[in-house]
């Protein structure tokens, strides 16, 4: 092997030296841009330059699936084979590509020109099937594979209101088009306490990333702590299968998120912000960098508060807030033990507020309108607008903005979903040829299944909770009656086994055992005792795992076991 020329690397990572270990992921990204992968000499140079132990650098490379310590192709095609894409023929697409180049998934051509990989959800579910070709999204791929869109993905924005998505659907909104940060300017005329009060009970805003934690409580916690440095982190590691709302918000209206971060920074007294964006959204990074430059030129960002973009490298777990901090700090994305909580001991052990993109996008709205007018939308306990990521068997998959409180039936009607399942009372004569609704996966892989019985449930936190359905990140993935639930579950099992960080035993071992049993379910080779095995594994992950990933890794599976117990018993199909 020819000797590796390290001079370009030295130049490329020089600027990361002041960051120390925190510069590790940016440096590895830069190195991989130059060499295509991370050979030993390159990893060693990065380690020595940043002062990180060699073994730790190797540990980080190994943790993130988009870092490679063996040669890969100069072009990498990542084909999403998760649920929404699978419904639209992702397996056939992957087979076709592999057949064309004589490869198996995960392999590289001998001349190192191409690698083809299976990928977890790429967040392109409404334009499935989809792939990531280097830094470009390839979407809407036709059944004969001949037509597709390539580049920055389009946005499909629908719904009954346009509050959060007012600037979405027509490409990136520049600062000139967005206008001045009027809400931020208004916030600056208020005291930080007043801003927090508006965000807190007055508006009733809770986090939109999946955990639904009250935003104002988080802010209040961080605001009251005296510290030299505090941070605002925007969680844009959107990786929940079926979720793509943050992609649309950041691509089409980046200034809304940045303005939200400015308001948050003022409220808690933060001097620095980070946007942590998943590695599978490379095409958003230049859009964000450009928007940040615009905001700097306009004086919204600067010495008092500035924002840095950090790019992940293929790890669902980094959407967990403390794992995300670890990743920014240049470590493997292991979630931390809580308490202490981020508001006191967050990023770099400093008080930190971490909010999801959609949560931050609500802030300009709340501040400019005032919480009273904001509350005109939605219900008493679930105020405001909500984004739903509708995918699967509907005529118009896309991002739907609606007020909290519409029913699932109304949402599916807007999206052109399948008719409800036939009940004994429904006549079998009418429309028998149209496939009917079988199930809706609610809230993503970490969510739960709903059926036709749930159609009249109002989409609010309180109504869904009462029905045992999580709102999660707003995923509504629709399956008609022709679809195989065991196939959906099989992909869920693979997803969580692939994405478990491996720290705590219930999840590290449980996601593997769950995957094995779900593979048997999908192959109709269930063994005697699998039902109770799967119950014990799922229950133990839910009750005893360290973080939210493990605690929800069995959520959809356990809900399926309640709805369709026969699938998990021998000789029942």
């Amino acid at each position: 092997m020819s000797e590796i020329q390290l001079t370009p690397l030295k130049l490329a990572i020089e600027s990361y030296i002041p960051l120390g270990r925190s510069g590790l992921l940016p440096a590895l990204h830069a190195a991989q841009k130059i060499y295509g992968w991370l050979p030993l000499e390159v990893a060693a140079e990065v380690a020595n330059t940043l002062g990180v132990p060699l073994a730790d650098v190797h540990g980080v490379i190994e943790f993130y699936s988009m870092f490679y310590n063996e040669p890969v192709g100069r072009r990498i095609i990542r084909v999403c084979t998760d649920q929404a894409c699978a419904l639209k023929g992702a397996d056939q697409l992957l087979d076709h590509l592999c057949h064309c180049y004589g490869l198996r998934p995960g392999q590289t051509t001998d001349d190192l020109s191409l690698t083809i990989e299976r990928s977890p959800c790429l967040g392109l579910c409404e334009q499935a099937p989809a792939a990531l070709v280097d830094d470009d999204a390839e979407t809407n791929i036709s059944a004969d594979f001949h037509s597709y869109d390539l580049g920055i993905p389009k946005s499909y924005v629908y719904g009954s209101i346009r509050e959060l998505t007012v600037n979405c659907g027509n490409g990136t909104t520049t600062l000139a088009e967005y206008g001045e940060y009027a809400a931020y300017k208004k916030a600056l005329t208020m005291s930080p306490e007043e801003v927090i009060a508006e965000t807190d009970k007055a508006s009733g805003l809770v986090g939109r990333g999946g955990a639904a934690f009250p935003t104002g409580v988080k802010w209040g916690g961080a605001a009251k702590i005296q510290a030299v440095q505090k941070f605002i982190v925007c969680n844009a590691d959107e990786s929940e299968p079926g979720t793509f709302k943050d992609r649309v918000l950041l691509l089409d209206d980046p200034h809304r998120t940045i303005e939200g971060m400015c308001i948050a920074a003022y409220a808690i007294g933060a001097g620095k912000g980070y946007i942590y964006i998943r590695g599978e959204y490379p095409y958003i990074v230049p859009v964000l960098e450009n928007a940040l430059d615009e905001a700097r030129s306009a004086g919204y960002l600067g010495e008092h508060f500035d924002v840095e973009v950090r790019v992940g490298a293929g790890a669902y777990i980094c959407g967990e807030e403390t794992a995300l901090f670890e990743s920014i700090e240049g470590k493997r994305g292991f979630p931390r033990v809580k308490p202490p909580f981020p508001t006191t001991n967050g990023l770099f052990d400093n008080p930190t507020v971490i909010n999801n993109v959609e949560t931050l996008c609500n802030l300009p709205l709340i501040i400019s309108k005032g919480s009273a007018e904001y509350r005109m939308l939605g219900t008493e306990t679930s105020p405001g607008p909500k984004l739903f990521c509708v995918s699967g068997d509907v005529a118009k998959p896309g991002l739907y903005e609606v007020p909290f409180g519409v029913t699932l039936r109304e949402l599916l009607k807007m999206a052109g979903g399948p008719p409800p399942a036939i009940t004994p009372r429904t006549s079998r004569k009418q429309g028998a040829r149209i496939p009917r609704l079988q199930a809706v996966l609610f809230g993503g892989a970490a969510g739960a299944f709903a059926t036709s019985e749930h159609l009249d449930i109002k989409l609010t936190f309180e109504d869904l909770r009462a029905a045992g359905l999580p709102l999660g990140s707003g995923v509504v993935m629709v399956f008609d009656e022709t679809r195989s639930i065991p196939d959906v579950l099989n992909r869920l099992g693979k997803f969580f086994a692939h994405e478990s960080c491996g720290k705590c035993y219930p999840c590290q071992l449980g996601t593997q055992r769950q995957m094995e049993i779900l593979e048997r379910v999908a192959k109709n080779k269930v063994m005697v005792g699998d039902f109770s095995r799967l119950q014990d594994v799922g229950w133990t992950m839910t009750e005893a795992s360290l973080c939210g990933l493990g605690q929800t890794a069995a959520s959809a599976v356990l809900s399926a076991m309640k709805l369709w117990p026969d699938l998990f018993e021998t000789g029942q199909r």
Partner: protein
Amino acid sequence: MAITFFMDGKEIKTEEGKTLIEVARENGINIPSVCVHEATKANALCRICVVEVEGQRVLQPACIVKAANNMKVQTRSGKVLRARRTILEMLASTIDLSDAPEIQNMMAEYGASFNRFPDAKRRESEIQDDNPMYIRDYSKCLLCWRCVQVCADDAQYTFAINFSGRGFETQVGTFFDRAIPETSCVLCGQCVAVCPTGALKPKREFLLEQGLSPQDIGVLNSGRKKRK
């Protein structure tokens, strides 16, 4: 500050700041654990020590949760037993526990079966015999992190080992799988001392188990036959 709380219905007085596992041991209540060691920072990762704490949504790890005034803790409730048993069964279906008598005893105590998960993938690994002091048999490794922690900032600050892979495929490893002599390892032996499952074993012990006599090993060590 003195506090009073309840463990398995028993009223316990103790000082604020102690973990549940510490207080339990002082009071003759056994809470089992796999990953915790006095030499390493508790990371709450094995979850064998989970207990039920009234008012908490999920089970709580006793190795890091501190006793608090009026807290009500169950260390052997049905939920606790189910979690412990299942975790042990999943462990037994994954790694070789033949050199881990403490965990074998736990299996017996919690009625955990070695064969609960048939057809399960195991973490198999070749024995790595690449240095004069210890062997590494990662098919016995249960990823308690103790070795990585003592090698790093819990004790030695050597940073010779870290992790490779992720999730179930995680393994303790060196920089690009280099042999131990080619790493920063100083052969201090602390990792071997804290290993609970015989995944790290002194070379001499390993050779004796292989049937070599102490004399044979002496010859190996000297590299040539000793003069009579």
